[in-house]
């Protein structure tokens, strides 16, 4: 069976862990995130061609003013999810910065920009024009809600598919 390592990247409190929790049933405690800075989960996905791939999800502690992402955790990743909070514009900027960091470490591997908290549409702050510009750079963008589960499966499936054909 194929295995792929994917990382969850994003600013602090954008909902990375909630997205993973929506996607898999965790074995390890979330306390690992604040101690070791990462928590590993596993999800087996079935691709369109019928093949199965095991996704090892490395949920990295959120990037904030006090702690930066440990780049060593990115090493060997076959793809990653850049998670931003749609109700906080600055998290999109953090995502852009993290994408550059990830690119420096793992190179040009598939990734998906996920705008989380889509259920809070009334509080949406992300500039749509900025999104258009990002899309024009070829970034796949998807909207998710860890609260309702909307778009979560699709986001991971999309990344898995992109990794499979990469």
């Amino acid at each position, binding site marked *: *069976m*194929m*295995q*792929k*390592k994917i990382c969850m990247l994003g600013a602090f409190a954008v909902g990375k862990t909630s997205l993973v929790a929506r996607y898999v049933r965790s*074995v*390890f405690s979330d306390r*690992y995130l604040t101690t*070791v*800075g*990462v*928590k*590993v*989960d*596993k999800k087996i996905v079935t*691709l369109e*061609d*019928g*093949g199965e*791939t*095991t996704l*090892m999800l*490395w949920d990295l502690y959120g990037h904030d003013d006090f702690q930066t992402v*440990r780049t*060593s*955790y990115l*090493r*060997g*990743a*076959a793809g990653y999810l850049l998670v931003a909070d749609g109700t906080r514009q600055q998290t999109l900027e953090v995502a852009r910065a993290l994408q550059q960091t990830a690119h420096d470490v793992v190179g040009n591997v598939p990734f998906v920009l996920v705008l989380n908290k889509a259920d809070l549409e009334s509080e949406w702050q992300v500039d749509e024009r900025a999104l258009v510009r990002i899309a024009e750079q070829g970034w796949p963008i998807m909207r998710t809600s860890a609260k309702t589960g909307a778009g979560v499966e699709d986001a991971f499936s999309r990344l898995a598919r992109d990794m*499979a054909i990469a």
Partner: protein
Amino acid sequence: MTEAAVRLPDEEPETGSPPGAFAELRTLIVGPEQRQLRALQARLNDPGRQAQDVSDVLPEAVLLRRRDPHLTRALAPTIEEAITASVRKNPQPLADALFPVIGPAIRRAMAASLSSMLESLNRTVEYSLSWRAIKWRITALLTGRPFAEVVLLNTLVYRVEQVLLIDRRTGLLLQHVASDPRAIQDPDMVSGMLTAIRDFSRDSFRVAEEDALDTLRVGELSIWIEQGPYAILAAVIRGTPPRELRVAFQEAIERLHAFHGDALQSFDGDTAPFDSVRPTLEDCLQSQYHQAPARSFRRLWAIAALVLVAIGAWLYVTLDRRARWNGYVDALRREPGLVVLSDRRDGGRYAVRGLRDPLARDPASLLAAHGLVPDRVTGSWQLYQALDPPLVLARARQLLRPPAGVSLQYAAGVLSATGNAPAEWIVDSSRVAPALPGVTRFDASAAIAERSSALADAIQSTPILFERGSTKLIAESERSLARALETLRTLDALARVGQRRVPLEIRGHADADGPVESNIPLSLRRAEFVRGVLAVPDLPAVDLRVTAAGSSDPAATGATEQDKQRNRRVSLRVGPAVAADASGR
């Protein structure tokens, strides 16, 4: 060859142009290409030729794409269906093909399983009879753990429980083996977190790549990590492993890189190529247990020997006591006058119950001969009179008290007396003896005969002398005749006891002084006189007979007065006793 000669027969001349010139020009310019195109078209339209062409390049094409997961996924359904159809049609070819692979695999799995089972069994048996084992069984009861597990934990030096081969770059699990597959958490995630922790420690302490974390310890578990250029080997060990084990792990990771370096270097997420590394990893599943001290076996043997000796001694004592008791009871049964009705043993005490003749031997006197202590034996004896000959005889002696010189014998119900017995004793005994149990008859004939003979001698020697020419006794002879009468009474009594009759001849004598004719009547009168004295009623068994000898049978032949006095007499002669008839006559 002319240009026209190379024109193809199916080519049509173009309209509005000189047909020959165009065709010729075209033939000259693109003729070879046209022919190649037509040949190519014909080839493409030929399915058989296409198949031939594909078959020519197919092996190389598959080889070129062997690392492409898309090819694997594309081929998988077809191959699966083909295998399924083949098995349904005839499973034998596939079974034959897999036999060389599956046979060794099954044997290896069975050998490993049996080895593990035997090891566990050995440990369980080895420790099942010791004091420690009892303590461990209590621990197992209190904790609810299986006994074998408690034994394992207490005898374990170390055991490699899991070995993980992890891609060093991605932290993905390449292969994994475990001594007990049931006790494994998800090794994929363990692999990932282990890699993350290594990265974390390396980043935190800013150490070089090759100085990464190589040991973790959690409770009884240690995790030893050996890294190679492309992969790391992580072993989860319970207990205290020796340093030499790390060398074994280093050799394993080196061997893996030597034989699978390319696969490790080019790992892209497909773990299938690493199925073949399982034997190398399984070699790392080593373990060591405390050996049971040999002296515990010696102690065990010593205890067993002591137990056997104790059992043997107990058996010996028990059997010896039983034999002695049985011997004692048999002796009681053989003893005259003792009848054993029952006997029993209760622990170390014995009891016997029965009948005992008062004259029989005391049962307690037999105990010592059989090594029995009187304190431990209880006898309950009821008195009775036994008819055993010795006891009948003893009882007769006790009752009759035979005088010295008299002996008693007993046989077939007849009590016999022999020897020189007083007539009174004979008479009394003959009256009492038949009343004794077991005595049907008292035979005193021998004693009677002996005593009667003496009495007869005494009677016959009694001097009964008369005065001259008279039937008057001289003074001394009156007393002699009185004693003869008493003796005769005794003889009579004995004769009656013996159911006999005693003939007594009273013979009269005279001296030779007077005429012969007168001496006969005188001697007769003298005899009659004596008969008159002896003819008393209490001599019923004595038959008196009177005879007269005159002077023909003198006691003395001399001519002196003394000789003549001796001839003026009556002599008494006791004849042989004869049996009395039923009336006593």
